[in-house]
């Protein structure tokens, strides 16, 4: 669909590693924002519960 099949295996493999790298960084950063927002009230609520 994106024409990736026409790229050489080396380029495809390099792109794949890059995609996983970017995914990991984005997920780490994204969940970090969620953790900072959600974790303190959840811990406090559990502590009071």
């Amino acid at each position: 669909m994106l024409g990736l099949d026409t790229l050489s295996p080396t380029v495809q493999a390099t792109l794949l590693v890059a995609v996983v790298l970017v995914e990991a960084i984005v997920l780490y950063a994204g969940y970090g924002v969620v953790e900072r927002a959600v974790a303190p009230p959840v811990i406090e609520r559990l502590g009071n519960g």
Partner: protein
Amino acid sequence: MALLGLSIELLALFIGFGFMVGVFFGFFGMGGSFLVTPALLILDYPAPVAIGSSMAFVFGTAVIATLKHHDVGEVDYKLGALMFVGIVLGIEGGKAVVFFLEALGRAELVVGVAYILLLAAIGVLFVRSALNQSTDDDDDTGDEIPEIAQTIKSYNIPPMVTLTDGSKASMWTISGVGGGVGLVSGFLGVGGGFIRMPAIYYLIGVSLTAAVGTSLFGALMSGAVGAFTYGLSGVIDIGVVTALLMGSALGARIGSAATAYVDEDDVTIYFGIMLLLASTAVAFGELATWLEMPILDTVSFVLLVGSSLFVTVVIFYYGVQAVRTTDSHPGTAAKGND
């Protein structure tokens, strides 16, 4: 309807399984990869796809672990660089074996049996460690070089190289460790931290803290090289990898935070039992193929996911109990070998 090339059911399954694997990874510092390949094999993914996708997952989790530590700790970069060639050759060798077995139509069987033995061995080690923990009072100080490493170093087989700490090690030992761990990684689709860290510590003989950091650095290299190597053959399912990472990145944060509240000794035995059940699950999966009894595939799947879910719930349970009974605060005791 499909997302990332997966049905909604499979997508939810992989995110959920990734979450559990992430909790183990964050809490125990391992378990991140050696559950993924067996799960994919049980779901009837071909061995090269299961191993290649697991290697890409290893790379993603190693990146996340590195970000979590802000750096990879005390790393002997020179040692890491020297091991690199061995790792590359080892992974290539492991991949070659997998594709050779695949051509013979025996890859799933051989890799499955290897996992039965691996999971059982690690499971027994964890259970034994949990049962003996009360008598283990002589922990390593972190800076002492073990006796076996000193013996190996004393052989001085040239070429010798000087490591960052000033000590010398044979290039043969370094290449052997890199190649050996790379071979296991490339053959099973695991990060190999559970053997790389002890191998660096016991065979090459750097301090424990440097061994841990250099091992994580090695996981980054292994994961990247493994993902690239299997990527060249076009067997990595990026949808599976993405779904697993979506779950594991969250699970690793929770597992890591739980270490501030939960005593690892309380749950180690459950993790060991889970690994033994996972070994049994893979055995059922192999039997299902061998005996042509699909019901055993279902038993295998339920056993693997069920035991993982049970240990996740145990960690959560102990965590919630600890939060309710103590006033400790979340720490940054992030682990992460691979």
